[in-house]
């Protein structure tokens, strides 16, 4: 299936190639976007969507290829070039300046000024406020929010600001990279409405998403990428989720979604000895008298709404944050949790939530990223790092975890999100942990990488480890866990045991219902 020749195309990308130090991110990619359409870009992690978007937004320069907008050949060398041509991008990683107010952020680089003719130097914040006020209000940003520095906001609100910033300037072509991640349902639907309204106003949209179910009824065309190449474009009305998944991964959808049925029965095992126990652990107001225990061979899921204290619990166990009262027992012995390094030594490890900021060391190689938590293992005399054995060990992990990279010496930042996550898991495994904590292990990674990460967790537990998994997606928790604890406002409010057995009895909905009710604060009838 070739890219259809579209003589009426507004944006035409031809033969774009981009290589990063040995990794080919894009190879001879074509894309054509018609006027006023919503054009979805699909593909697994590392398929090249983000790179293409960066090329269009002027963040990265392509090695080869041409970009044509309305028949005019564009030279996009820097972000301001793209903006000047009406190409606005909402990046997955936010492009907001923490020190500036919401208003200044929205108008950053496009400020409106007042003053006598020829001397228009004063920022006209009044006019700027007027211009953006109603749009902002529709996304729940008040006038006062406009005057607050963005650094004060949580991740969700920042995303909203980012979207308002993009919509405020009537773009010709709006690029949205995973715009809905972190949005509430309401805001998500409002964004979709806006996308439709923009299309009606002759704006074209390029939309990157991992949620295939969002496409239907919204996107007009979908272009699928795989391994840095264009697989093809299809009208969304002529296709199905299964069809798209098959194009994205080159395999049938059933192979990907089959994990739940396959995995559930064999996981019905007796839990082993207790590894970790918490008694009445409190930390300020965010954790209150939490008691729990984890056993060998067990995956313990932690559910809860945002702000329920799940991440705080993980951080408290790892010694990242100090606990104010209560005790932690490892293998039956009480331990004083002081530093995370001490907990690592004692056999705990954590895959943190925010991979980009807390997990990877972007400029180090894959091999270095794996060995960093346990350098002794690859060192001579305990302190001279042996690069050879470091690489050899990384090579083992690359094979066993199918980390997709040509070379373990490549910088980790050049890997896709899913593969970065595997490297982080490898780093944790390399410390030979007895308890491994996963905080949102599959956030922002694609379906196939997700399955792989899930299998890594299962393998770890099958080999006698104990895992604690924190996830916002209830379905993911149910799929993985033997037992789920539900948190609410820093407390444990419920426990659901025997999940594999329940799944084997086809009682998935009941389990889900109980978890969701507990998390939302309803008593189970």
């Amino acid at each position, binding site marked *: 299936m070739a890219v259809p020749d579209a003589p009426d195309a507004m944006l035409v990308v031809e033969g774009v190639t981009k290589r990063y130090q040995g990794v080919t991110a894009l190879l001879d990619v074509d894309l054509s976007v018609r006027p006023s359409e919503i054009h979805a870009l699909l593909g697994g992690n590392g398929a090249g969507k983000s790179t293409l978007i960066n090329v269009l937004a002027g963040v990265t320069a392509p090695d080869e290829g041409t970009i044509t907008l309305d028949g005019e050949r564009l030279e996009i060398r820097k972000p301001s070039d793209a903006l000047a041509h009406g190409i606005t991008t909402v990046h997955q990683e936010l*492009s907001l300046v923490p020190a500036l107010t919401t208003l*200044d952020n929205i108008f950053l680089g496009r400020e409106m000024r007042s003053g006598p003719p020829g001397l228009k130097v004063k920022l006209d914040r009044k006019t700027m406020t007027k211009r953006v006020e109603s749009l902002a209000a529709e996304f729940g940003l008040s006038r006062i929010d406009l005057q607050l520095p963005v*650094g004060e906001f949580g991740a969700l609100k920042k995303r909203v600001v980012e979207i308002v910033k993009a919509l405020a300037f009537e773009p010709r072509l709006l690029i949205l990279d995973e715009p809905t*991640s972190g949005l509430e349902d309401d805001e998500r639907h409002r964004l979709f409405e806006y996308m439709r309204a923009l299309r009606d106003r002759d704006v074209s949209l390029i939309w990157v998403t991992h949620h295939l179910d969002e496409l239907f009824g919204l996107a007009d065309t979908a272009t699928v990428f795989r391994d840095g190449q264009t697989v093809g474009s299809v009208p969304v009305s002529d296709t199905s989720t299964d069809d798209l998944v098959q194009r994205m991964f080159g395999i049938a959808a059933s192979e990907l979604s089959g994990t739940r049925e396959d995995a559930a029965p064999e996981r019905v095992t007796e839990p082993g000895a207790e590894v970790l126990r918490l008694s009445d652990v409190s930390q300020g107001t965010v954790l209150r008298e939490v008691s729990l225990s984890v056993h060998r061979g067990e995956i313990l899921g932690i559910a809860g*709404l945002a702000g329920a204290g799940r991440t705080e619990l993980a951080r408290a166990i790892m010694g990242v944050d100090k606990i104010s009262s209560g005790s932690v027992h490892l293998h039956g012995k009480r331990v004083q949790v002081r530093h995370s390094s001490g907990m690592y030594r004692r056999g705990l490890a954590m895959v943190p939530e925010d991979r980009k900021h807390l997990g990877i060391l972007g400029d180090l190689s894959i091999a270095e990223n794996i060995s960093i938590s346990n350098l002794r293992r690859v060192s001579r005399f305990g302190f001279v790092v042996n690069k050879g054995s470091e690489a050899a060990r990384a090579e083992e992990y690359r094979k066993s975890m199918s980390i997709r990279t040509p070379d373990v010496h490549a910088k980790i930042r050049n890997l896709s999100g899913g593969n970065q996550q595997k490297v982080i898991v490898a780093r944790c495994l390399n410390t030979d942990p007895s308890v491994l904590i996963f905080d949102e292990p599959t956030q922002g990674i694609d379906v196939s990488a997700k399955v792989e990460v899930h299998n890594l967790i299962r393998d770890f537990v099958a080999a006698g480890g104990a895992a604690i998994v924190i996830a916002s997606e*209830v379905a993911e928790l149910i799929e993985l866990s033997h037992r789920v604890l539900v948190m609410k406002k820093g407390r444990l409010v419920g426990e659901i045991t025997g999940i594999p057995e329940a799944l084997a009895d086809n009682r998935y909905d009941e389990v889900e219902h109980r978890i969701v009710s507990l998390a939302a604060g309803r008593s189970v009838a």
Partner: protein
Amino acid sequence: MSTDQSKARVSVLERAGYRLLLDPTLGVQAMLVTICVVAAFSFPVFLTEVNLYNVVGSSIIVMLLALGMTVVLIARGIDLSVGAVMALCAAVTAEALLNGYPLTLAAPMALATGAAVGIANGLLITKLGLPDFIATLAMLGFASGILYIWTGGVPIIGYMVPEFYYVGGLTPLVGSVTVPMLIALVLALVLGGLLGWSRLGTHLFAVGSSEHSARQSGVAVHRVRILAYVISGLMAAVAGIVIAGRNTNVPADLGTGYEIQAIAAAVIGGASLGGGRGRILGAVLGALTLAVSINLINLLGVPSSYQKIVIGAILLLAVVANRLSEIVNAWARRRRLARAPVDHEADAPDLGPPTVPAESLKPTRKALR
């Protein structure tokens, strides 16, 4: 629950909190007032008009440099060359006057010199990608080296023309008010306006706070950083013109140590070496705090060689105070966010039937960070 009212109160408090955070001048004010009160009670002479004007007058040079330094610090840079550039510009002014040029030509020459050094600093940092610290350190050596060769180590003297006594502040304008005080006041107002109400000001904060985001938003990052150094260079030139008039001679080592005082004044005033923070009023108060402290130790009869220790101690104190305010603020923010879900629930007690769809859990990622 009186939701609206409590919300409004929180936001006003939030704003006040933010002002305190980005506006740590309050801390400096407290420090300045404390030192003044101590000085006033210990030494009646402190509060005399002569002494007060003397203190203000002595703070002007550092103040001018600190104003430029604040701009650079906001853009996440640092300018170590200001002292040397000031001395070089003082020499340019003095030599021009010696060669018979009028002050109206000598001063622009000095300003051009300062601007040129600023451009050079900016280009080295942006185009060659040198660290700010290294580029301006090299410029410090370069500028003071030129001055030594030029003067042969002998101070320039005999350049004073009558109107230059005004510029140096040796002859007051009206009462005890001197020209340098007015220059500093006007420039502080101009730079304050620039930072608060101009595009360049916003861009300076943007570049300092998150260069990546600024670039993605279409800010010409290189130009902004170069302009920051040009402003610093110009301020150093103004300081050079004033100090040439004040000193009545220009020794080659005139600028030694001024870069530290300028950085100290800016940091006392709330500028952060991490970029994105800084206030003009803070720089002014910071310079005054340094001057008052030095005045106090002079009154105490402490040998002037101890001044450096005092400056160092005040700098440390200010940085510790800033750090404390950051910690307190981060704590307050966490508290506020931790409260948020509770409030949210109180606002919307009706969450619908107990069967909330699983999707509604999915997108609610941490508001908590």
